[in-house]
């Protein structure tokens, strides 16, 4: 009986406190507030602030330890007018939705962002459009946030004068999904972060990377599309990254690649599509990686091993019409390339078990030569090169002896 009473009491209190939650309206004229900052200052925890249609020339709007919910409507625009940050937030359990923010100040010394979060927990940034952003969302030391359905674009002038669309620093367990980021430096950047999930984002036309990991373990990114960036995704100095169902395409240029793996271990790469990249994957010092059921289509190089990579396992991947399927330097180092489908494979399958009877050597003599002497690339598409490639295929002399797919598949893998 007593317990019931206490429970009843708590319900009453919580309902009562909810009843006190107000919605503060902000608009240019004829409202309680004409400035977002004053509305924020007046708001109590749990309150909502409705920003009506209009242009608000405000900057450095500071939300200090208040759990409030800001939302706008179509046409609610915050114009920072190149004066520092848009919002600065240090709070938990808050949200900002349906807003448009533009003209973040460009600086070479400070990381001005449209929305800057510091030590924030349980928050949501949704449906926000950023134009001419220097940094878009700069999120530091935060946890359990959701960033979704935002559209972030910069001016894309040069790497030095632009920032990252979504920048996570020392943040954990965040969900970044359904965002479109373009014309920035990095689309999404994450440093010292763990257990984050990146899903369904579309990162394109960025000057540097579509997605960039530094020192961040145990993250996952899936179903994203990286198109026409200087490089699709760079994963550096990180462990146990899971990459699946992403599309890397048209990252084309003299120094471009779909996916760069630099000093990363124990990752999983599966069901991704690499299409029309100069280099599909560059693996530099990456160890114990599993590559399964990926499509490599029409790339210059499908996979390029630069060095120091051990125990990587490629199986059931499709290598289709790449100029070079594999470029490799150094010893075999326990890397295995068995049971893949190679469109260049010309062997036969007499016992009809689905595996070719003749082993396939993915490293062509020419790609070996180019590794030795980069200048020899100038003989690309020369008749002589076709001839020596063919003779090397018949009797291998130079190409790494053990680098062989002993069970090349006869049919494309359907996944």
């Amino acid at each position, binding site marked *: 009986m007593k317990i019931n009473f206490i429970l009843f009491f708590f319900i009453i209190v919580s309902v009562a406190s909810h009843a006190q939650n107000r919605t503060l309206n902000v608009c240019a004229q004829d409202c309680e507030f004409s400035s977002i900052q004053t509305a924020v200052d007046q708001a109590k925890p749990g309150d909502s602030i409705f920003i009506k249609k209009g242009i608000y020339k405000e900057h450095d709007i500071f939300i200090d330890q208040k759990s409030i919910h800001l939302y706008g409507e179509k046409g609610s625009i915050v114009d920072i007018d190149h004066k520092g940050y848009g919002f600065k937030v240090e709070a938990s359990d808050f949200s900002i939705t349906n807003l448009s923010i533009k003209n973040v100040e460009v600086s070479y010394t400070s990381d001005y962002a449209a929305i800057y979060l510091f030590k924030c927990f349980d928050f949501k940034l949704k449906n926000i459009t950023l134009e001419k952003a220097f940094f878009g969302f700069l999120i530091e030391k935060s946890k359990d946030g959701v960033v979704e359905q935002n559209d972030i674009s910069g001016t894309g002038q040069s790497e030095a004068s632009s920032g990252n669309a979504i920048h996570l620093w020392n943040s954990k367990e965040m969900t970044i999904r359904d965002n479109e980021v373009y014309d920035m430096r990095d689309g999404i950047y994450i440093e010292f972060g763990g257990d984050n999930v990146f899903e369904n984002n579309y990162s394109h036309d960025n000057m540097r990377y579509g997605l960039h990991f530094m020192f961040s373990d145990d993250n996952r990114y899936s179903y994203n599309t990286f198109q026409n960036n200087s490089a699709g995704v760079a994963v550096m100095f990180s462990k146990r990254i899971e990459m699946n169902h992403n599309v890397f395409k048209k990252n084309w240029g*003299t120094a471009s690649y779909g996916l760069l793996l630099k000093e990363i271990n124990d990752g999983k790469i599966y069901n991704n599509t690499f299409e029309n990249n100069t280099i599909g994957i560059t693996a530099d010092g990456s160890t114990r990686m599993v590559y399964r059921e990926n499509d490599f289509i029409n790339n210059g190089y499908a996979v390029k091993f630069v060095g120091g990579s051990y125990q990587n396992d490629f199986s059931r991947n499709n290598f289709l019409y790449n100029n070079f399927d594999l470029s490799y330097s150094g010893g075999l180092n326990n890397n295995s390339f068995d049971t893949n489908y190679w469109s260049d494979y010309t062997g036969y399958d007499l016992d009809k078990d689905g595996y070719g009877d003749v082993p396939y050597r993915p490293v062509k003599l020419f790609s070996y030569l180019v590794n030795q002497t980069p*200048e020899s*690339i100038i003989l*690309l598409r020369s008749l002589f090169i076709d001839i020596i490639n063919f003779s090397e295929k018949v009797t291998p002399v130079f190409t790494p002896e053990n680098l062989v797919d002993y069970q090349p598949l006869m049919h494309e893998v359907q996944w």
Partner: protein
Amino acid sequence: MLKILKYSFFDLVRSRWSYVYFLFYLLLSSVLLFLNNDLSKAIITLLNVVIILVPLIGTIFGVMYYYDSQEFTELLMAQPITRKSIFLGQFLGVATSLSLSVLLGLGIPFVLYGLFQSNVIFDFLILIVVAVFLSFIFSALAFNIALSNTNKIKGFGYAILVWLLLAVIYDGAFLMALMYFQEYPLDQFSLLATLFNPIDLSRILILLKLDISALLGYTGAIFSAFFGTVWGSFVSVGVLVLWVVFPLWRMLHTVNKKDF
């Protein structure tokens, strides 16, 4: 000279070989275009064919034509016509008819396909220019070979050898040099080495215009820095012109001295 040019030209245009040659290109480029749907890719494949086949056909055809019309040439020489105009006329007849076959064979399907609306028209123009240059260069070389060898078998042998040398062996030697001197900076050298071989030069000129040039890395960057400039294009066209002029000059020189 013009009369002889006209005569050889129409003689060749009427001949079966020109038709076969023309039809081959027509078929090749139409099949490539209509199966592939990608102009840029089609150009790459055509490039492969053009830089191998045009020189080969040019040399063989040139030698063949010379030996075939030897008696007629001797008859002409009995007439009051200068040797220069006889041989120049014959050479131009062969070279233009070959170029025309390539030009029409490649051009018609591309035009039908809608080349003028596409943005690769410039790449295609380079392909055509290169093909025409190669026809001229290799028929000039062929005339030289045929003039220096009365023995037909020997003449054909040398013709094939010259083609093999420029199309294959040169690249082999080039590659060996690159491998052997890999400790040294080689970009200037490779630039120079490509300039000396018309086939390599043509290949590079086209490759640099296509997407695939991104694969060429920093060597490619050096090449496009050179060929992209006015000076570079001037030099490359100049070299191709030299490749036509020099064999022609030698041909006329031998013709004037030769005892037929």
